[in-house]
């Protein structure tokens, strides 16, 4: 009974979400990877909002078959209570013609089993896709590492032809996803060939001082967060801000 209800809910939300996306046609920025999705999403959102753009990002665990539509439609989850789902079910059709629908959607896409990405990509077709990292995390849902990587390859394949792939140049598996692509690929990271690239970073009391090279210009930034992942998130923000101009 529970499985059947979930099946119905999943497909109902998918249809409503697709209709909503068809009507509003937002720019979709997908963020996927084993780690750092949330910090990257936050940084992208911050950067775009700085430019005066309207942005909606999915909350941290709203990145699965049911969570993603809810995030796009901006509806709460009913979790495991049947009654709590009723508002989401009844109000979701109204979202199709919602006023002030944001221009940009920044969506984390979660994949913990084979086929997850395929389902999520049946709902959204990204303009920009970011792959943050591929590690052994979530590997247990896949028969081997190649199958996990294939999920991210699928994301690259399904990104719009006139869209952009943003790939971590420091992770070999991620970097290889960009090989032989006809669409635009941007590599970011510490790798000297990356652009944007971290030329140097120094930890200080408030966070990190980083020198960034982007389009042949070098600039220093103070990032008030600790950890290498925040440097990556910062680069992703820089690159996305640049790339949305050409969309």
């Amino acid at each position: 009974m529970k499985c059947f209800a979930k099946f119905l809910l999943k497909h109902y939300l998918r249809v409503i979400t697709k209709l909503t996306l068809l009507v509003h046609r937002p720019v979709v920025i997908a963020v996927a990877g084993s780690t750092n999705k949330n910090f990257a999403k936050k940084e992208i959102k911050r950067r775009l909002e700085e430019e005066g753009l309207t942005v909606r990002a999915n909350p941290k665990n709203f990145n699965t078959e049911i969570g993603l539509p809810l995030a796009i439609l901006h509806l709460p989850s009913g979790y495991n209570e049947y009654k709590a789902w009723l508002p989401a079910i009844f109000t979701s059709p109204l979202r199709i013609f919602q006023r002030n629908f944001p221009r940009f959607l920044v969506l984390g896409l979660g994949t913990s089993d084979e086929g997850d990405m395929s389902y999520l990509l049946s709902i959204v077709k990204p303009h920009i896709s970011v792959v943050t990292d591929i590690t052994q995390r979530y590997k247990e849902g896949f028969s081997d590492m190649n199958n996990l990587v294939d999920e991210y390859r699928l994301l690259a394949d399904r990104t719009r032809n006139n869209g952009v792939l943003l790939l971590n140049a420091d992770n070999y598996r991620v970097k290889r996803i960009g090989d032989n692509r006809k669409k635009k690929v941007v590599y970011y990271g510490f790798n000297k060939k990356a652009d944007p690239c971290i030329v140097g970073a120094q930890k200080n009391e408030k966070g990190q001082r980083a020198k960034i090279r982007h389009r042949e210009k070098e600039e220093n930034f103070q990032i008030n967060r600790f950890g290498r992942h925040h440097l990556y998130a910062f680069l992703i923000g820089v690159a996305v801000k640049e790339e949305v101009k050409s969309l």
Partner: protein
Amino acid sequence: MESFLGLTICSDISMFERTKNIKLSVIKQIELEASKYPDAVSLAQGIPDFDTPDFIKRRVERALKRGVVAKYSLSPGLPELRELIEESLEKEGMYYDWEKEILVTAGSIEGITATIMAITSPGDEVIIPEPTYTSYREVINLAGCKPVFVPLDEEKGWGFDIERYREAVTEKTKAIFYCNPNNPTGTIYTKKQLMDLARLAEDNNLFLISDEVYKDFIYDEKEFFSLASIPELRKRVIRIFSFSKAFAMTGWRVGYLHSDEENVREITKVHDSLVTCAPVISQYAAMGALEIEKEKMKKFFEDYKKRRDVMCSRLENLSHVFDFVRPDSAYYVFPRISSRVAEVVGKDLIKGDLVDSWGFAFRLLEKAQIATVPGTAFGPNGEGHIRMSFGRRREDIEESFDRMENIFKT
């Protein structure tokens, strides 16, 4: 020496040099004694009476079904959990790197033990404001260090007097270790008090260990401040948190600590040798806890506030027996026992101005079958008080006070 089947059995306590002065928790002793009374009502142990929320249980069920809980995790904890912890800290204005500065522990006590072992050498001194949580001094003793008690001021609502700390610092002092909000007094230290402590630590190159397991139990919109939110203090402050109290997960044994990477690297070495990693199944439960929307936990904390109000109002009815400071946080009240109760509990318990808390707790158990914790368990300054927990069911609170009103009739 004893003999058994021709073998000589050595029962010489000197063989247990490290543990000979360590005491089993007074709270456990009281609970053990209470178990002998069939109708005993316990206000002793600091255990929430709620069950772990369903959302957390479902998270664990999913992990079990996926077969991801049987193996060790990395010693500092599951990366996905540490990432969630970093995000939750960020919401509280604290910025720590999940990869190098956050360590998932087997409850807060393991984090405390690993910290004390890492930052001290035998013979060092650790200052503890008291009354405070009983196990601190045992951990300090276990590490071969000396706990130095600095009394909190009951007249000032159990607040700090910084001059007393200044006087307590010696060349051997390595750290100041405090619980904020404090168990058993429910005190929230003010920002000024904590900043004074931070300056003292800076002047004397001391670590500050801040146990904040009750930071979610704040009543009447009181402000809570953590020194871990000051970037300049990140090398000095080691902040400890547990999922036990805030999410009714005492049995899961999972918590975390965070500090600058240099400190966490050293603490992780001890943590690794003590437990390898926190129980993986519990780490998934902790992920469930952090994924819960704050709103979902609101009812839980509102219920505690109601119980506090019930306990305080019932204590007011017993003003001839107890004098108390209304707690702003945690789920304990720490009333002073009036010497006027001598007629009921026995004059032999009166020691000067104070009532022997150990004797009082046992007589209360004997006469009314109510288990409480003697104040002396929380340090010398706790003498003359008992700790009552309102983490228990409201019915238990009401029942225990009915019984007390009965035996302490005016």
